[in-house]
Every structure is written in structure tokens, then in C-alpha cells.
């Protein structure tokens, strides 16, 4: 295609950022709309190459957080560094190292897939470095997101799943060091979802891209992320690998039994000792004994139900007791 020309490189070489720097550093981030505190002191860091999931119920402040990091929203207070730069003052060179996957709707409907990706790639060419060649070769990129059969199709003719893959392709056409995905699989059918998860895995493998994604779906966070941050009530209430979180969540067990026709439930950190004591005390009067370890999902779902029913603060305390 002759209409898309390569850009001239800028005269000054783009400095290579040191590799040991954290990709994202957030300290005591606060956001207030009017009198409503949406973020009340969020702190976390993301290491380079890490896949981080920001998990939380709807309205927890996930989108606000990610939009502040993308530089699309100005925070009320707190320290934020994204690739070493304050996103409120990020320049175009900084922008070139970020990828933002936006949910398309009907924009660029008349463009062909290949035409659009080739055009958008042109903007990244001046920011190519010896380490990261920008932009991504358009045919390789189309292949990587599995849109080769649709390369000549108009965007408006793509199916929902194909469109989201195009969204991802647009987000990564500049080979970003850091990629933001906000609720990437909202509205996906299970098949499209699985394909999308594969794509994210490939991304973090190929380029060692740092990825921050938001989701309200624990299952998705567990499948994709190296580390999960649970955001609720405007603060991070849990932070750890999926494995760590589930071990912490299942530390508590629920013991159910009946005695003389009356039913009892008790939550305990040491189920074995509790049951031993129970039998010592009541012996054969105990019946219908049941010991059940809560999975991370049980704990999280119970928390979300409580949270969404408006008993946010109480739910938060209960959840923190379990996960801390």
C-alpha cells in the first residue's frame, strides 16, 4: 500500500529505560468526584513483564484506576509512576510505549482491517529503538491476533469476537512495554473468551509485555494473571498470586453439625482441633458433621454479593479477615 508512508525517525535517539524499573508504581492514589471518594488510597506496584489483574465488583474503582494510569484522567492525590513517568505529564514518547485496548463500537467501520492497522502503526515508527522495533509488522500482527482471513474485510463487517481481536491488535501495534486492558472479555461467549485468554498469554510470552487488566471475574483473573489485586471500597484489600490468595482464603473452614435436632455452623481456622473438642464435649450427640473449606471463589463471591447488596463496609471487613 502506497498511501501509508514510513515516518522519518526523530533526530534524538529514544533513551532506553533501565530494565529494573517497576512498570507501574502507585502510592496512596486518591480520586474524588465531588464529595464521593472513589479511590481512598490505592497502593501497588507492577514489575516488568508481570501480568496483573485488578479484580473487583462493578463500581469498585477499577476503571477509574486504569484511566488514571493511562493518562486519561487526572487524579485527586497520590503518587503515580507509569514507566517512570507521571501519567498526568506523559509526553508522546511515553505514550508510544503504552498500549491501550479500547472497546470498539462502530468506529473506523469503513476501514479495512489491514489498512487501519498499517495506518495506526505509522505513528509509532519514530519511536522505534534498537531493542523494540516499532511498529509491529502489520501482517505478523494480523496473524498473531488470528485475523488473517479477515485482513481485507471492512471493520464494520467483523463479528463481535473478531472486532475485539482487532481492538487488541490496535492496542499492541506499537509493541508497547505496558499494555492496559479494561474488562477485555465483557460480553464474550465462552469460546471467544478462551481464544482471548490464549492471545493474552502469547502476548506476555512473546514480548515480555507488562499487562494490567481489570475484570470482575475471578476465574478470568486466576487464568490470566501472575498476581491479583482485589479492589473494593476504593482500596486494595488483597494482593497476591492466585495460589497465595486461595490458600489464604481457604485457611478458614466451615463446620456444620447437628445436636439433638438443632443445627449449628461455625467458622474456624483449625477445623481439626475444633471437631476433636466438639466430640470430646458431646460425644455421640453430634450428627450430620460436615467440614468444608471455602475456595477463593466462594469467599470472593460471598463478598461481592454482600458488597453489591449495599453492605459494603461490613463485607469488606469480613473479607479482609479471611484474606489477610
Amino acid at each position, binding site marked *: 500500500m502506497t498511501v501509508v508512508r514510513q515516518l522519518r525517525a526523530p533526530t534524538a535517539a529514544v533513551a532506553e529505560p533501565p530494565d529494573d524499573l517497576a512498570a507501574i508504581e502507585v502510592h496512596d492514589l486518591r480520586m474524588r468526584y465531588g464529595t464521593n471518594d472513589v479511590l481512598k488510597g490505592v497502593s501497588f506496584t507492577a514489575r516488568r513483564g508481570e501480568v496483573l489483574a485488578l479484580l473487583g465488583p462493578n463500581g469498585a474503582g477499577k476503571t477509574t484506576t486504569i*484511566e488514571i494510569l493511562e493518562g*486519561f484522567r487526572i487524579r485527586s492525590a497520590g503518587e503515580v509512576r507509569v514507566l517512570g513517568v507521571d501519567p498526568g505529564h506523559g509526553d508522546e514518547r511515553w*505514550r508510544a510505549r503504552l498500549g491501550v485496548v479500547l472497546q470498539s463500537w462502530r468506529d473506523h467501520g469503513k*476501514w479495512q482491517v489491514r489498512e487501519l492497522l498499517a495506518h495506526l502503526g505509522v505513528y*509509532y515508527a*519514530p519511536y522505534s529503538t534498537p531493542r523494540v522495533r516499532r511498529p509491529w509488522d502489520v501482517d505478523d500482527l494480523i496473524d498473531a491476533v488470528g485475523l488473517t482471513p479477515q485482513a481485507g474485510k471492512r471493520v464494520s463487517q467483523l463479528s463481535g469476537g473478531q472486532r475485539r481481536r482487532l481492538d487488541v491488535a490496535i492496542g499492541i501495534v*506499537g509493541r508497547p512495554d505496558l499494555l492496559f486492558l479494561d474488562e477485555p472479555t465483557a460480553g464474550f461467549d465462552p469460546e471467544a473468551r478462551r481464544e482471548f485468554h490464549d492471545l493474552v498469554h502469547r502476548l506476555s510470552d512473546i514480548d515480555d509485555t507488562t499487562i494490567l487488566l481489570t475484570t470482575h471475574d475471578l476465574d478470568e483473573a486466576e487464568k490470566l494473571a501472575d498476581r491479583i489485586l482485589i479492589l473494593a471500597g476504593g482500596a486494595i484489600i488483597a494482593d497476591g498470586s492466585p495460589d497465595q490468595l486461595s490458600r489464604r482464603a481457604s485457611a478458614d473452614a466451615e463446620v456444620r453439625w447437628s445436636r439433638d435436632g438443632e443445627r449449628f455452623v461455625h467458622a474456624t481456622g483449625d477445623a481439626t482441633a475444633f471437631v476433636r473438642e466438639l466430640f470430646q464435649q458431646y460425644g455421640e450427640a453430634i450428627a450430620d458433621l460436615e467440614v468444608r473449606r471455602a475456595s477463593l471463589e466462594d469467599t470472593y463471591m460471598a463478598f461481592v454479593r454482600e458488597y453489591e447488596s449495599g453492605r459494603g463496609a461490613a463485607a469488606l471487613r469480613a473479607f479482609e479477615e479471611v484474606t489477610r
Partner: protein
Amino acid sequence: MSVISLGRPAMGAARAGLARGRIELRHTFTNAQDLWNYIFPAVILLVVFFFMGDATVPGTSFALSSRTMPSALGMSVAFGGLVTMAIALAVDREDGTLLRAKAIPNGMTGYLVGKITLVAGMGLVSLAIQLIPGLIFLDGLSVRGASSWFTLIWVVILGMVATMPIGAIFGSLIANPRNMGMIMLPLMGLIATSGIFYPITNFPIWLQWTAQAFPIYWLGLGMRSALLPDSMASVEIGESWRHLPTVGVLGAWAVFGLVVAPIVLRRMARRESGSRVAERREKAMQRVA
């Protein structure tokens, strides 16, 4: 965060914007809706000429339809700059095109250059679609020599520069593309008083002055000066083509627009984010359902 930055990557982005404008202009020839938008004004003109029949410009024996033709071309330039630009910006903001531009380096520069290229290109195409048959079929219309062409070209360019930034301001301020009526109604009123379809020399003085404050009157006058015989200047205000005041008024609108538009555009772009686009999508979906 600077929305528009200068420097070599920005120059590159401006070139990418030109390419973007050319691609989008090509897209307008490939679908029925855009093609209809090109042809529609010419169809309207034909209908108007049919009803004008053999009517002449008052006080002359010159065909009213031949006087209307260049005036309508001037109106078409103003319409393209004001309405096409405003709709394009409002639609692109609603569907997230603008947010995509914001998410890529120097994307806003490329987007704006692309949009200007597209709207200017579309304006020239619809101008040609109306002008060429007019030159062939209407009596009394002629582009005589270099000076006529020269007038035609500067009036069109100055008209675009005067109206596009104003259109961009409207497009930034309108929250919803479906509220375009807020612009269309006053614009229709302005067209009616700007001497496009009928000379305004017999209108009340205050109405004449009102019309002369806006670009549409001057675009009509400028196009008439390029395409009509000089004798027709006698039925204009001041019995002259008044080129200097034309440059003055259109130039003033251009300066105003070029100063204010970047401020309004920057403010609009700063407020764009994924959740805003999602909100608008949700609203639009509710309207559909």
C-alpha cells in the same frame, strides 16, 4: 498533557494525517450513503431551478437560476465547513474514534489533519458535482480566464478556513450528534437571509446587516463575483463585488476560529476516556432498544 505537540514525529503524524484524510475520502466513494450526500445538493438545486423557471433577477433580464447557482456553491462551501465538520467531530467523539487517536502518540495531530483533509476534499468533490453541470447547462455562467479562476480558488479556500474551525467548535460543544438540529435551524434561517436564493437588497436594512456579519453571505457574493458577468455587480449591496470586505469578514471569522478552536478542541480531547465512550454507547444502545 499536550494534545498537539510539534517536532519531527509530529510532522510525521501530520503526513500520516494527510494519508488518513485521503483514505477516508476514498471510503466516501464506496458506499451509498456518502455518494447520496454528494449528489443530494445537486438534486435540490435542480428542483429549485425547476420552480424558478424563467424568473429573472429583479431589475435585470438575467436568469434568477443562473444567479442562484454560484450563490448556492458558496452556501455549499459554508455548509461543508460548518455542518460536515461538526457532525464528523461529534460522531467521532461518540463512537470512540477520537479516543483511539488520543491513545496513540501524536494521534490527535494526525486525526485533525486527517479530518481537515477529508472535509476539504469532500467539499471540493461536491463543489465540482454542482459546478460542472451548472457551467454546461446554465446561461450566463462562465469562468472567464485566469482572474475568474483565481477569484473562485481564493474564495473557496478562504471560505473553508473561515468555516471549518467554527464547525469544529460546534462539533466539540455538542454532546450528542443527534442534537445537530440546534445548529441546523439557525443555519437555515441564516441561509434564508443571506441572499443565496434571492437578492437581499430589498430586505430591511437590519436584516441585511445581520446577514453581512456571517460568512454565508460573503461566500455567496464571492462565488457570484467569480462566476457571473461583472454587470451583475450592479444589483449587489453597494453595486460592487466588494472583494476587500469579503476578505475582511471571512478573514475575521478565520482568525476567530483558528484562535478559539484549538482551545475548545483541547478541552474536549482532555475529557475523553474509555468510560465516557462507554457511557455514550450505553445511552445510544438504550435509544435503539
